[in-house]
């Protein structure tokens, strides 16, 4: 046998996710912006980042890795330490990508506090990334659309029904203004999902009779600050936002939304009309393992049964318990077969056996490539309704587990119960307060009123 170099091995050559191949990025032509088209001769997209935490930094890095001239010019966070850290990390990423010029945030374009988002919107930006804790998303999205900005926003897009309605209204306005909106449900930009869901839509497993969706894992980051390290209750909850329902939505909304959203997608739910989503949900959940008071008020497990209009059911589980088997997958059972999505197994079993094999590009990058390509070409692009309805799908699951009751979609969609505070200030009271021992009131199925 002749000697080979390393490069000749097919398997060893890990397919590099090229960072700047914007699929379908159009040539810059006549831009049809309602607001500030990039001035003739300057095609630089100016980006503002609102929320400089782990995901905000990630999203900003991906946005700044898209094709064409682009710059981060403004940044907002509730906390100055998070802002500075975030900016340093994004700078580091851009230096690594050898595009350090893509970060150009002047000192006067760093904004801190509850109203920092508005200051970013008031600065000279074309696109904003909304990556704060989800509770703020409706307020930020509405303000971004009012300010005529294109938007990339992380999921979920709200934590309560009034928030969902606010997002839906702003989504309509965004469409009228021809503003592009991307939402971080990246499975819609992940090749194996696209291929197999398309086959399901074309009848590969017949009619769907049931679905199973899961996000069972060990949980997320531990609370970042103690009470003693915080100026007061508001800061304490903001620092440890995952554990407060008004900020996070509970993990069924913050995380499991991905899997519930795939269920809706498989069922051909229509975000444009709001048709085809579950009509009701019932289930159970609680706090079994993550019971320490530092873990705020959210549950550590939810199991929900959703019913669609045609009687199809979606059985959902999400769990944050270290040491239990993990499972982050989606499955649909049809009259002619079963589709498996997520984990390592993307396949259809049954009359139309197929298995997705091979590598695919990083969906977190692809979602930005496609959004920014649409912004540059002036192509309509709206993922906001899909984000809103899948958020509501997750929310009705939480309402069902918190109350122990069956929750109807329309009842939830029209609910006036808001989780958000009256006032946003460091000395203001969050909507949920601890007792003298620092313990929070946990939802009580059978008694808690949720709609």
């Amino acid at each position, binding site marked *: *046998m002749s*000697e*080979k*170099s*390393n490069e000749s*091995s097919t*398997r*060893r050559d*890990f397919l*590099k*996710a090229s960072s700047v191949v914007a699929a379908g990025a159009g040539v810059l032509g006549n831009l049809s912006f309602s607001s500030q088209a990039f001035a003739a001769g300057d095609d630089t997209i100016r980006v503002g980042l609102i929320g400089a935490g*782990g*995901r905000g*930094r*990630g999203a*900003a*890095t991906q946005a700044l890795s898209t094709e064409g001239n682009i710059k981060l010019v403004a940044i907002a966070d509730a906390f100055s330490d998070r802002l500075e850290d975030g900016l340093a*990390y*994004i700078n580091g*990423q851009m230096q690594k990508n050898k595009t350090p010029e893509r970060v150009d945030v002047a000192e006067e374009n760093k904004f801190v506090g509850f109203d920092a988002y508005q200051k970013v919107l008031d600065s000279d930006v074309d696109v904003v990334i909304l990556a704060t804790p989800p509770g703020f998303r409706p307020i930020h999205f509405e303000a971004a659309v009012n300010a005529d900005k294109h938007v990339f926003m992380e999921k979920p897009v709200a934590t309560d029904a009034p928030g969902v309605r606010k997002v839906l209204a702003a989504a309509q306005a965004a469409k009228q203004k021809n503003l592009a909106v991307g939402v971080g449900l990246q499975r819609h930009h992940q090749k194996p999902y696209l291929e197999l869901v398309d086959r399901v839509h074309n009848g590969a497993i017949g009619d769907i009779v049931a679905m199973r969706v899961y996000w*069972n*894992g*060990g*949980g*997320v*980051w531990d609370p*970042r*600050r103690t009470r003693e390290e915080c100026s007061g209750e508001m800061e304490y909850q903001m620092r440890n936002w995952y554990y407060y329902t008004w900020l996070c939505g509970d993990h069924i909304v913050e995380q499991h939304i991905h899997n519930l959203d795939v269920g809706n997608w498989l069922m051909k739910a229509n975000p444009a009309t709001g048709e085809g989503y579950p009509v009701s949900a019932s289930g159970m959940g609680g706090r079994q393992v993550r019971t320490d008071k530092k873990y705020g008020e959210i549950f550590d497990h939810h199991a929900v049964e959703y019913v669609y209009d045609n009687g199809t059911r979606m059985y959902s589980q999400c769990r944050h318990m*270290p*040491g239990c*088997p*993990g*499972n*982050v*997958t989606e499955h649909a059972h049809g009259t002619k077969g079963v589709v498996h999505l*997520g*984990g*390592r*197994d993307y396949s259809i079993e049954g009359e139309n056996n197929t298995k997705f*094999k091979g590598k695919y590009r*990083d*969906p*977190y990058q692809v979602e930005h490539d496609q959004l920014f390509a649409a912004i540059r070409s002036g192509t309509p692009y709206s993922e906001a309704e899909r984000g809103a309805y899948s958020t509501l799908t997750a929310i009705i699951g939480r309402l069902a587990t918190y109350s122990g009751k069956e929750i109807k979609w329309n009842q939830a969609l029209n609910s006036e119960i808001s989780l958000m505070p009256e006032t946003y200030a460091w000395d203001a009271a969050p909507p949920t307060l601890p007792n003298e021992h620092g313990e929070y009131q946990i939802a009580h199925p059978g008694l808690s009123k949720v709609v």
Partner: protein
Amino acid sequence: MNGQFPSVCSLLIAAVLAFNVLTVADAADKEPAAADAKTEKEMKPYKQTITGTDVSFEMLPIPGGTFTMGSPEDEADRYTDEAPQREVKIEPFWMGKCEVTWDEYDIWSFSLDQKIRKLRGVEPTEQDKKADAVTRPTPPYTDMTFSMGHDGFPAICMTQLAAKTYCKWLSQKTGHYYRLPTEAEWEYACRAGTTTAFSFGDDPGKIGEYAWYADNSDDQYQKVGKKKPNPWGLHDMHGNVNEWVLDQYQETYPAPDKSVQGPLPSPLVVATELYPRVVRGGSWEDDPADLRSATRRGSEEEWKYQDPQIPQSVWYHTDALFVGFRIVRPLRVPSEKERAELKLDAKKVVNQR
């Protein structure tokens, strides 16, 4: 004695309701004398239970000796980075009979030992307290088994730092010094006295008896210890998952040092750069050529391209579903100075909050 399971490598984690609490005295009694060998002659296989759990792992003695590291130019499918061949001298050590499983790894990564103590109202031993001082990783953002199986399957997707930190924790927990193998130790143990492409000969046609690889793995990792072992009793050295070693990856082995008479003593390329570092043995997704005793692979930053957070976690290679590790325990415990100079131990990590 420990539960008498005809076990392969590790047992299921205790159902925490079985209140068979191990006291310190018990644990000491249970510690097999074989683990206390002081000389090469006394070294025997031993099984160690992780205190406060029902999970155990098996260690096999690897005698000291010399061997030829790298592959000859006429070996089928060899790569240029397997040269130059050189004589290497290895000191005796014990090596994990199998790759580290999730059962073992999760006790550290999810702090299950601490949780079990709390649940049972058990006070930590002195060793527990030391082990508690070792950093645990932040939780993974998704299920790192990717639904391929958990109990008895190899732990995967960890960075070299995570593997080294696990060793540090296990050392404190057990009172024995565990670490990752050097690349030379790994190849020595893999060859187990053989000079052929594989430890079972040169015929790749027999690989299915010994290894999980592209054609028999059903496109995923498999339970450890199910295939035939090599001549020294080690399972899955070829295939299943690549295994971390300590060394920095270089395109070739350093040219033999003319000033050194005889075999190179315990070589190690001390890692100074994060990438690439060496993994060995090939995996469930590789072809036989990439499972050979001499095959090497370097780590890449792309192994975490789907980690959605910035900074990306220091603990996870979200996309390296083909990387795990195996532990060793040198007979002679290195001095603090050696451990620092050779970077044998994990550096201390303070988790970002």
